[in-house]
């Protein structure tokens, strides 16, 4: 299990580095973040205490040195204190994120899993039927892969929501709006999630198809596949043996993909006015809401790290060779 311990160590270090980057954001950007915040909060009453809190948070008018502020930032983090959001009416950042996170997790989670499964299965099929018309699907998928996520989102809205009116084109329920769980609510969520999810699946599925197909074609030429074939095993069984081995690079490539998918999902959220983290992040940037921006960036980074860690665990579980190496 030394492999896993090493990976966990790496992710812990990466997490520390990510927190440090997060700490540095308001400190390295040009201009005074406090002024920017105040410029965007005209009309709101800012108490002395709030001002003080903001000063401490951005380190603009603080007597403690940078190192002291850094430690303070960590202690705040340990207490689950991410500051207050100036653009969302001075509510704690954690509240805003807690409202947006389920939306993003639901959308990105479902879409990623769906596109991985569908893409991998299609990749197996295309590799198995190589030399047939299915090979022509590959160049076609690159088009969807190369097209920006939000362009596909535009097309989807134009076609399905406006022209055919199958789906609502308005925005989903608000960020802080968490009604009781009942059928109307669930169907509302589903109605608003299908189109964005479809966009993400179409856009990110192509990568899985090409990756799986290429490895599968290589694996199908391995001697053990020929052996399985020669033994007269049913075709389905042979494909299963080949696919099981071919899927490993796809899973290790998950680390690379998840970042892209999350990035793409953030864009998709913005086009669909979907009240998730991407939407919140863009708002925070536009409103110069540093605390919220730091919080969202931190949560996204941690989520990506966790997904990577999970993929690593699955990989070690699936591939015995990684266990022997240690």
């Amino acid at each position, binding site marked *: 299990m030394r492999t896993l311990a090493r990976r966990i160590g790496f992710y812990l270090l990466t997490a520390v580095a990510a927190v440090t980057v997060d700490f540095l954001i308001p400190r390295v950007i040009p201009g005074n973040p406090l002024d920017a915040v105040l410029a965007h909060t005209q009309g709101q009453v800012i108490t002395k205490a709030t001002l003080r809190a903001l000063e401490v948070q951005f380190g603009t008018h603080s007597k403690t040195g940078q190192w002291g502020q850094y430690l303070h930032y960590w202690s705040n983090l340990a207490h689950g204190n991410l500051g207050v959001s100036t653009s969302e009416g001075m509510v704690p950042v954690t509240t805003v994120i807690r409202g947006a996170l389920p939306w993003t997790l639901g959308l990105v989670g479902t879409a990623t899993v769906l596109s991985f499964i569908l893409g991998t299965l299609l990749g197996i099929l295309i590799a198995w039927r190589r030399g047939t018309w299915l090979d022509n699907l590959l160049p076609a998928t690159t*088009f969807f892969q190369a097209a920006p996520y939000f362009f596909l989102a535009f097309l989807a809205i134009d076609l399905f929501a406006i022209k055919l009116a199958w789906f609502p084109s308005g925005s989903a329920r608000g960020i802080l709006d968490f009604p009781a769980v009942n059928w109307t609510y669930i169907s509302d969520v589903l109605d608003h999630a299908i189109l964005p999810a479809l966009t993400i699946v179409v856009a990110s599925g192509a990568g899985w198809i090409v990756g799986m197909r290429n490895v599968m074609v290589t694996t199908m030429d391995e001697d053990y596949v020929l052996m399985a074939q020669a033994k007269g095993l049913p075709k389905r069984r042979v494909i299963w043996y080949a696919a099981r081995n071919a899927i490993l690079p796809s899973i290790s490539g998950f680390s690379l993909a998840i970042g892209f998918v999350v990035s793409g999902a*953030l864009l998709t959220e913005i086009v669909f006015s979907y009240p998730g983290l991407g939407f919140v992040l863009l708002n925070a940037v536009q409103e110069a809401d540093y605390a919220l921006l730091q919080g969202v960036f931190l949560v996204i980074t941690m989520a*990506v790290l966790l997904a990577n860690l999970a993929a690593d665990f699955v990989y070690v579980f699936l591939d015995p060779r990684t266990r022997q190496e240690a």
Partner: protein
Amino acid sequence: MAIGTSTGLGSAPADGASLLPVPDAAGRRMRLQLPRSPKVLIGLAMLAVFLIVAVIGPWIAPYNPSRSFSATASFPQAPSAAHWLGTTQQQQDVLSQLLAGGRSTVLVAFVAGLVATVLSIVIGVTAGYAGRLTDDLLSMLANFFLVLPALPLLIVIFGFLKTAQGGHDLLIGLVIAITGWAWGARVLRAQTLSLRNRDYVESARIVGERGWRIIGFEILPNLTPIVASSFLFTVLYGVGTYTALAFLGLVNPNHWSWGGMLFYAQVAGAEQSGYWWLFIPPGIAVALLGTSLALINFGIDEFINPRLRVAGLSRRRARRAGVSGLPKRFVLGVTPVVRQDLAAAADGTPGWGPGGRAPGGPAPGAGSADLISASGHAKSRRWRRGGGQ
């Protein structure tokens, strides 16, 4: 492909340990072999068109892309004879914007690709060649950048660059490159690790070559396909990322780019109101530019890993090669390839793969289809066909 530097020493790994082609006398043939695939040809042609548009686009644009044609009309006008792709909400000519916006998009993407590739070569090859602590530290750096979600970071950075100098193509490309080099570095490091202990590198070291010379003249030439692939991949990443950032309005909106056009389309509510001419042209342009890069990358993939190409013997292609009577569906574990007469005659032995002859036999005077288990045999055969045995 750089040829000749490691010629004599680079013995052919017939066991298929390396996925890279062996640089030998067949090199000249290999270089010509690359553009032969229709995918690569189409990709190269498309890319050439985009590069030409990037250079001359702003000059051949019929109007100034920022010029407003009417102060009274408040809705985007559909395509007409005067404005082939219609006008925007501000009554600007969409075609002119499309032509003018190409330059910035292509420039940013290529700057990003170039800088990121240089970074990934320096870091990846150094890590792979140096090993030990250097390797550990550099690998960790690459992995850190790999798992860091790039777009949120870029959104944050550009959110604050915008006010300062968000319209500067070179700067944008540079910032995108910083988030995009890690993947290439990781792939290059892995391949360098496997090249480092090859005999010819070992001999160069024993002869007393300096480290930089071994890297520059023995290792780098053999990494060329991977470097090219990683360059195209990063350019593709640059196109997507720049378009996304411009679409979010984080780049100076007076600086025309395809992403910026999509930004204005979103502002005008184009997808809700059916103003398709606002988002279809720039979207298709970005998608096609990306497709052209991906198609070339397909070709490089097939070049690096010939099994991907050998596998694609369709029935039509087999017929064209004069082979008939192929089985309806190939058995798993067996790859059909067309063997040219020349090679077959020189080789002489019909059944050098475990598969044996295809049913139906060779058609006279054309080619023969061999069903061979392609675990290495087909590949080395193909590479050496040029006479380098």
